[in-house]
């Protein structure tokens, strides 16, 4: 891979006095304005809907007030962070600039910062916090299922827990890899100094944080009974907690769309000289494919949730049969987003796997073009399969064969990617470092997820498995087994570059083995439980399934414990031990490992020139002198 001559450019920042750092546009002001905006929206909502000013009463059923409170709260939060300053300045005709609030120390991580590296770290920590919340919900769910009748929480609280867990995980995972790793590494991997739109990059992160907070607040408004899909007419009949779901997913949709747009604009226009399409790192290809889905599918979600919000507030009739609407319309619109969403989650994971395997097998990536065509194939086909979610929801029977076929066809490009992973592993002399272990776990998990997918894509068998724990197990094998394992692979692989510190290897390996075994021990029996007829989202089940459920719950607790080991390792390695990482611990040929640590301001002093692809392992390293900045592609 090409190297760069970026030197140790370590300018001394100008420090502002403490009072200037406390007073100004920052997280503190954002919280103040967010809370102020919330109460203002609540007040206006009550005035609009003709009720009295009762902002102390959280149980008052007023969807208008709550939706306006959330919207005003988010706007206030963003204004407090300083997101309104630049648009106002542009409205007054002041010149455009790319850089904002990159000067200060640790305060940069708690506010608007346009440095893509800072945003990447913000994402990693922010998303991690909400993953933890979602994980705690999962533990509570499994605690309830230790008994075949409701014991720990009631049925209503149970379904709310299921909804919060699913929604939080689905929402946050959309940016699980693109947020931290694509934001941090895509500009470096393509030889750019920044993202195309740095403020939009920062905005996507803070929108997601506001969304996560709003979803968590649903517990104060009675939760929501729909699970992560938000189906009508239950959506319309639900208490105010449903509004939290609507605003959460709408904000996630906007964040996703902007993130995808920014990524695509960056990759399409800012590649360094010599970085042709056939030399683009495979991870960047996966980000590009994911971004296409984000830009096109997420707006559909935002539109659908807008309709749902209008039905709940001003009594429009999109989804209400009593007014000429149809709840089936919601299901169609939701899954038109929802199925591409599954690939929004899976594709970055594919990219991570194929990016990491050559490093640890010391072999070139097998079937680079096949892998790219697989990713693009998945991207295209994912828009043509959504009705397989509606096989048992009243779909016209004549349409079933088409959607069954299209769903099964999508396994072909997915198979390309799997094949490329296998080809790269074939006869390799692999090193079994922690990131590699997670990659190998992906191979196992995703195989099970893929094979079980055949049963749920097939209309006859889906009729008996739909809505059961079988589908739930399939989904977790695909997404948790596919995405979360790759997420951890990426953490162990790239965090040493991001922080300059290395993880404790022994704790990391304990984390891996415990997680891998507990994951399979949790979700494998769920196939059986599902086949025996236990429905998901219901806290009560037949007593003959008790032993299996106890097994699954105990395994889930061990899985949760493995996450605590990861957290302990992170705290220990990053805060207490602080052992400096080697400059290139994996001996990778990829460009991010060739530049110094810490990654210099602007990434490169001079734009690098690419002369080969990043996977030429076994080929002597070709070193090219960096050239002055010149035209992009």
């Amino acid at each position, binding site marked *: 891979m090409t190297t760069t001559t970026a030197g140790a*450019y370590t*300018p*001394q*920042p100008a420090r502002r006095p403490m009072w200037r750092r406390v007073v100004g546009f920052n997280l503190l002001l954002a919280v103040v304005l967010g809370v102020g905006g919330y109460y203002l929206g609540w007040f206006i909502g009550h005035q609009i809907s003709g009720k009295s000013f009762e902002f102390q009463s959280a149980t008052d059923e007023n969807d208008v007030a709550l939706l306006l409170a959330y919207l005003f709260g988010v706007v206030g939060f963003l204004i407090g962070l300083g997101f309104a300053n630049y648009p106002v300045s*542009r409205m*007054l*005709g002041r010149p*455009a*600039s790319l*850089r904002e609030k*990159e*000067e*200060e*120390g640790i305060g940069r991580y708690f506010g608007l910062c346009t*440095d893509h590296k800072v945003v990447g*770290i913000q994402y990693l920590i922010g998303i991690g916090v909400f993953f933890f919340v979602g994980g705690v919900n999962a533990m509570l769910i499994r605690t309830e299922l230790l008994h075949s009748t409701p014991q720990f929480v009631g049925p209503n609280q149970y379904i709310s827990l299921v909804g919060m867990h699913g929604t939080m995980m689905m929402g946050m995972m959309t940016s699980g890899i693109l947020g931290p790793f694509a934001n941090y590494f895509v500009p470096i991997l393509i030889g750019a100094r*920044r993202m*195309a739109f740095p403020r939009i990059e920062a905005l996507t992160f803070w929108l997601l944080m506001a969304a996560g907070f709003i979803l968590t607040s649903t517990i104060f408004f009675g939760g929501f009974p729909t699970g992560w899909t938000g189906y009508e007419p239950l959506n319309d009949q639900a208490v105010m907690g449903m509004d939290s779901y609507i605003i959460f997913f709408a904000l996630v949709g906007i964040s996703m769309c902007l993130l995808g*747009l920014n990524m695509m*604009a960056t990759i399409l*226009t800012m590649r360094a000289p010599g970085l042709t399409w056939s030399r683009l790192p495979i991870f960047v290809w996966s980000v590009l494919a994911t971004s296409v889905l984000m*830009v*096109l599918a*997420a*707006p*559909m979600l935002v*539109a659908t949730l*807008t*309709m749902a919000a*209008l039905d709940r507030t*001003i*009594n*429009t*009739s*999109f989804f209400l049969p*009593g*007014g*000429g*609407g*149809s709840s089936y*319309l919601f299901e*169609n*619109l939701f899954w038109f987003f929802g199925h591409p969403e599954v690939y929004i989650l899976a594709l970055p994971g594919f990219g991570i796997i194929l990016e990491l395997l050559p490093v640890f097998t010391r072999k070139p990536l097998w079937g680079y073009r096949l892998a790219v065509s697989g990713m693009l194939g998945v991207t295209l086909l994912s828009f043509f399969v959504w009705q397989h979610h509606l096989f048992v929801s009243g779909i016209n029977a004549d349409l079933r064969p088409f959607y069954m076929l299209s769903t099964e066809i999508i396994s072909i490009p997915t198979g390309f990617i799997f094949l490329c992973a296998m080809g790269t592993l074939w006869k390799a002399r692999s090193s079994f470092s922690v990131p590699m272990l997670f990659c190998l776990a992906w191979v196992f998990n995703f195989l099970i997820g893929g094979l079980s997918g055949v049963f749920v894509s097939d209309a006859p068998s889906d009729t008996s498995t739909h809505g059961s724990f079988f589908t739930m197990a399939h989904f977790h094998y695909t997404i948790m087994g596919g995405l979360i394992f790759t997420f951890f692979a990426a953490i162990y692989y790239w965090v040493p570059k*991001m922080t*300059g*510190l290395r993880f404790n290897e022994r704790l990391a390996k304990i984390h891996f083995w415990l997680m891998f075994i507990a994951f399979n021990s949790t979700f494998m029996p769920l196939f059986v439980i599902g086949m025996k007829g236990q429905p998901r989202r219901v806290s009560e089940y037949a007593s003959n399934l008790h032993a299996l459920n106890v097994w699954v719950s105990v395994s889930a607790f061990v899985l949760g414990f493995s996450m605590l080991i990861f957290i302990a390792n992170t705290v220990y390695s990053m805060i207490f031990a*602080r*052992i*400096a*990482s*080697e*400059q290139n*611990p994996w*001996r990778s040929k990829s460009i991010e490992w060739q530049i110094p640590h*810490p990654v210099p*301001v*602007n990434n490169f002093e001079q734009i690098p020139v690419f002369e080969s692809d990043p996977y030429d392992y076994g080929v002597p390293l070709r070193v090219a002198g960096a050239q002055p*900045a*010149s035209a*992009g592609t």
Partner: protein
Amino acid sequence: MASRGEELPLGRMVPPVPAGAEIPPEPPDVGARALTVASRLLAGATTFFFLAFIFAYFYLRSINEEHLWRKGHLDPNQALGAAMIACIILSAALTIFAGRGMKAGSRAWLTPAIGGVVLGLVAVALQCIEYTKQNFGPTDGAYASVFCAWTALYLIAVLGTIYWLETQVASEVRARRKPASTEGDIRQADLLIAPGLDAAVFYWSFLAAIGVVTYVVLYLV
């Protein structure tokens, strides 16, 4: 084996940028290309957003649940609707003219651009007036729901785009008002404004096309 990296305090993991330092200049076409691509992608996202409403329109119309799709008296104001869409088309045409003028190096582009912004705002005002005049509200069945939501969200998109165009106009006005502005300064300012104007004009033209579709579906079909 490579050497060990440097252990840094948490706040310095990413080196701070010196106050006032700008990102080193890139090739001048990079920013322009990014804006061009972004405007096309935004158009794609907008298409899918309104596609949800088009789907809802035809879906609900086709099932006509309990004959509640469109009650007899629901008629949007044709005259106001036509006037609104005419304003939008004219506004888009003026901004296209302004964009071409700027590319040709003419200083006269500012007038049609301001005209475009004003006409866009007139379109918004006309739509608001229509809401007060029409004989139905969002609760009067499925058609009324689709009509009100679709037009209201279109209105928001129009306002956002008008804001975008206004930033370009304001930049030019500020450059021309500078006391020491020479012809060269203004040309330099134009070079910076051109990509933004080009992208905004493209998106505004695209949104006008969406407006035409909106008008045809909601008023004429």
